């Protein structure tokens, strides 16, 4: 027996990248805009999808609801009468392109204009896993503390839309919304930053305007 040392030079992220591109290509062929909805636990991701489903007239919505276990989010969205699918990771703290690839094999994309993929709730693990989405939406709420944006630069750097939810509760939890917005704009000057309170209807129109704009540009 003797020892050898082999130069491998193997890209360890290649597999996720390859599957993400495959997903993106499938979605493009079906003319579906895919939105990866990321964010903290309890920040309002599922409610955003529910309200969007109800308000987005003229477009057909699909949703894949990622969670570690349980199908609560799926049930909440499915009751609005849209194509929806639960996607349990088992133990993983994020969705990856492989999981989404399998989900898309079973998901009927025909007749869908926009597909929301709700990621597992947290601001760290999902960051490095491209799912094949067209846009990333990152949602946090004031109840997580007004330093939550500044503490998680990477997820916000790579976002297309940053939503700061529950702004009506800011005083009650002593959160400075302006600081959160400034942090978001500093970390990502190109992103659309929306102050929102879904339950009070604040900022929702702005979100819908962005979404309609994205969907219209797809058709153009």
């Amino acid at each position: 027996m003797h020892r050898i040392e082999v130069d491998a030079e193997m890209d360890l992220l290649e597999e996720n990248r390859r599957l993400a591109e495959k997903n993106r290509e499938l979605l493009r062929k079906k003319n579906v805009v895919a939105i990866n909805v990321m964010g903290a636990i309890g920040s309002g991701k599922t409610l955003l999808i529910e309200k969007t489903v109800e308000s987005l007239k003229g477009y057909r919505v699909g949703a894949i609801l990622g969670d570690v276990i349980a199908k609560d989010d799926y049930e909440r969205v499915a009751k609005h009468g849209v194509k929806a699918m639960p996607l349990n990771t088992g133990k993983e703290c994020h969705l990856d392109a492989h999981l989404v690839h399998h989900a898309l094999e079973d998901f009927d994309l025909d007749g869908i204009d926009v597909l929301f993929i709700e990621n597992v709730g947290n601001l760290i693990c999902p960051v490095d896993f491209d799912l094949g989405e067209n846009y990333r939406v990152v949602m946090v709420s004031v109840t997580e503390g007004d330093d939550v944006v500044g503490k998680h630069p990477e997820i916000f750097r790579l976002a297309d839309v940053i939503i700061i939810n529950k702004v009506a509760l800011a005083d009650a939890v002593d959160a400075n919304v302006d600081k959160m917005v400034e942090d978001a704009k500093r970390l990502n000057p190109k992103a659309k930053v929306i102050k929102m309170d879904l339950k009070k209807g604040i900022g929702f129109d702005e979100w819908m305007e962005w979404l309609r704009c994205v969907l219209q540009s797809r058709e153009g």
Partner: protein
Amino acid sequence: MSLDFVHEMSFASAILDAVMKVARENNAKRVKSVHVVIGNLLMLNPEQLKFCYDVVTKGTIAENSKLEIEVVKAKIECTNCGKVFDEYVGICDECGGILKVEGGKEMFLKKVEMEV
């Protein structure tokens, strides 16, 4: 909290898959050490990655092999004044320009030391 409930586990599994491929190609009897390169902007904690690597390699020919992690830094500089940064801070503190980020997201298996 379950042990698997850290995303380092996914990365550790990816390392193991690649290592086993190299080991098979070389008819290795044991894997002694593994050298990986990771970008500093990946959401990876090297200590947790090592811990997860030890867990996933149990019962394989890579059990007890040493995982060496080399961290490479992203190139972060201001698009306006060219100031170079160690960490991503978003806006340049000198001139208010937007920062450009290159790299920092790579991860590859560089070397595998084996007994054959």
